[in-house]
């Protein structure tokens, strides 16, 4: 049971980052279907950055590794967000199509560099960044062993720092959106850009910033996946893409609230890993079990649309481009 919850939290952290970024972006009215691509970009940029640092330095310093990974990851995925913003906000392209293109592009870039990183570096065998990955996974053993082997302490304190960062970030985003003036403006832009514009809010600026910063945060999900989840290497198996779509699903599941996203993410994690803990499953029924997170999201989507509660609805301006002169 404890192991299940533990792996659920590790899994949940990946999609929590993805979903938090997407919440910010969607609150500003941009339905960015490029989340998987952006997570890919964040993952690969972080990995490449540290990989060359570790390769070129005899004794890499862990804290520098972490900084390089975070900065590279954020920069790359925010850049992806910038391309998306430019196309959808300035050039008013269709958001769905642009987002999907960003996903294709991001996964292409990431898998290309991930697959040829070894070759570009001159053949060093398996790509790995032990120091950085170690730093990302570091936890305080004294706290983690509270209550003995695999109990409370293990469940609460045995994760790398990013798992806690995700929770803090979720709380911060909640406060930002609900309690600050600028958060209010952001929501106004997402609900009704024309009204926000009339009220003197710079719609373009808010949309750009929300999408780029949101993309940067989503990118951390990819970084956490490479550094912590699979331990600092690269796998060309498309998992990040599947996780990216789950992150999009999580946004709906959380009904666009960052606090709900925290427990939602862990619940998704439980759904995802549950099959390991049900005895006597055949492989084929196991595949059906993996359907659960998606089915649950779907049911919730239907439920929310049936209830029609105002607070649970997507931002009204979601997916629509804004052009001031078009009324």
């Amino acid at each position, binding site marked *: 049971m404890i192991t299940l919850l533990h792996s659920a939290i590790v899994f949940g952290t990946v999609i929590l980052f993805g979903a938090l970024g997407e919440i910010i972006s969607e609150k500003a009215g941009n*339905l960015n*279907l490029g989340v998987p691509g952006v997570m890919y970009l964040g993952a690969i940029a972080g990995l490449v950055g540290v990989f060359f640092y570790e390769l070129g330095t005899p004794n890499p310093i862990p804290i520098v590794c972490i900084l390089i990974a975070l900065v590279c990851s954020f920069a790359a995925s925010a850049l992806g967000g910038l*391309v998306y913003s430019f*196309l959808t906000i300035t*050039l*008013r*392209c*269709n958001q*769905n*199509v*642009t987002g*999907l*293109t*960003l*996903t*294709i*592009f*991001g*996964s*292409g*870039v990431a*898998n*290309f560099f991930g*697959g*040829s990183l070894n*070759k570009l570096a001159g053949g060093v065998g398996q790509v790995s960044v032990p120091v950085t990955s170690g730093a990302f996974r570091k936890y305080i053993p004294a706290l983690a062993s509270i209550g003995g082997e695999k109990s409370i302490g293990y469940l609460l304190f045995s994760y790398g720092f990013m798992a806690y960062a995700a929770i803090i970030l979720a709380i911060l985003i909640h406060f930002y959106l609900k309690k600050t003036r600028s958060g209010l403006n952001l929501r106004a832009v997402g609900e009704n850009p024309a009204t926000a514009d009339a009220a003197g809010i710079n719609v373009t600026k808010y949309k750009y910033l929300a999408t780029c910063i949101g993309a940067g945060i989503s990118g951390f999900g990819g970084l956490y996946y490479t550094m912590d989840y699979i331990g600092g290497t690269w796998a*060309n198996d498309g998992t990040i893409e*599947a996780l990216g*779509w789950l992150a*999009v*699903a999580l946004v*709906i599941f959380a009904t666009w609230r960052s606090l709900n996203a925290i427990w939602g993410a862990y619940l998704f994690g439980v759904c995802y890993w549950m099959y390991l803990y049900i005895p006597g499953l*055949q*492989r*084929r*029924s*196991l*595949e*059906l079990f*993996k*359907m659960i997170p*998606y*089915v649950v*999201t*779907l049911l919730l*989507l*239907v439920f929310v*649309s*049936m209830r029609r509660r105002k607070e649970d609805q*997507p931002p009204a301006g979601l*997916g629509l481009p804004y*052009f001031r*002169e*078009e009324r």
Partner: protein
Amino acid sequence: MSEITRKGHAQEPFIRISKRGDEMPVWKAWGIRVIGLILALIVSAIVIYAIVKLNPLKIYVSMWQGAFGTSKRTWVTVRDTMTLLCIACALAPAFAMRFWNVGAEGQVLVGGIATAACMIYFKSLPLPLLFLVMIIASIVAGGIWGLIPGFFKARWNTNETLFTLMMNYIAIQLTAFFVATWENPKGSNSVGVINRQTKVGWLPNLFSEGYNTDFGWNVIIVLLVATLVLIYLRQTKHGYEISVVGDSENTARYAGIRVKRVYIRTMALSGAIAGLAGFLAVSGASHTISTQTAGGRGFTAIIVAWLSRMNTYVMLVFAALIVFLDKGATEIASSFGMNEYVSQIISGIILFFVLGSEFFVNYRVKFRGAKTGGADK
């Protein structure tokens, strides 16, 4: 300049954007798109050069070889273009209605599952009857998969983008379930080529005896579908209703169109055609089923359909372009020792540019100080 403009006096913005009032002549619109395409190829060339330090022209030649080098390769390129075109045609009715069906991936997969099931369980049927059953089964399966989100959209206005997206993953897991059920040989976790010896249920050659050397039937089926969809959208009452609903749901309701019925009917149709694409992918191409049977083409087709403005013949051009890039990139990957994902990078860049060029088709850009008429692009 700044001394003249006093505070509180709005300065004329540096760039002004306005919507084009009149439709641009077709040749000019296409000129802009071609310029976008050329810019994209130049940027891709720079990217390729930066990564591998190889002459990009040589790479483009090699891509051509990869797509059309031999007659077999040409046929495979044609076959895959047709499958992609079929999926894009499936999306056209939904998109014309402004219904964001991003679930083609799943609809293709369930169509493929139905086809594979027929090939496995009904192999003793006489061939023509078997093909009929396969086609009907794939259409029905895809249709149902499309109908579900259509129903919820019509009944409770459930967000269709997110709904169809989730349906994709359910379909993928369903496929994984059937792969595990039908796996052959045991433990391989793949279905293998279905009816490898008897070739029952394989779409045969059109121009000669045998299998897999030409894909004439695929071409005929898909071009027929493309024509029918175009006629359906442009010339029929249903097509008219779809475009009215797409423009404004309220207008449609006032005009007495039964909007809910249009949603459900159109989505069932959209899913059905995607299901047929699943039939082509299984019976007409790979002769097997896996979670990769749709292979992301459900998503690529969205871009194809959107860029073509729902004109199924224009879709042929974009589908061919994307398949060409894909085949070409696989070739350069093997001959220059690069990684095949380079094709996704190039497709991404090209699509960004083509998408961006739509802006210059729809809007006019004026720079400050420019006289009337302004600068186009």
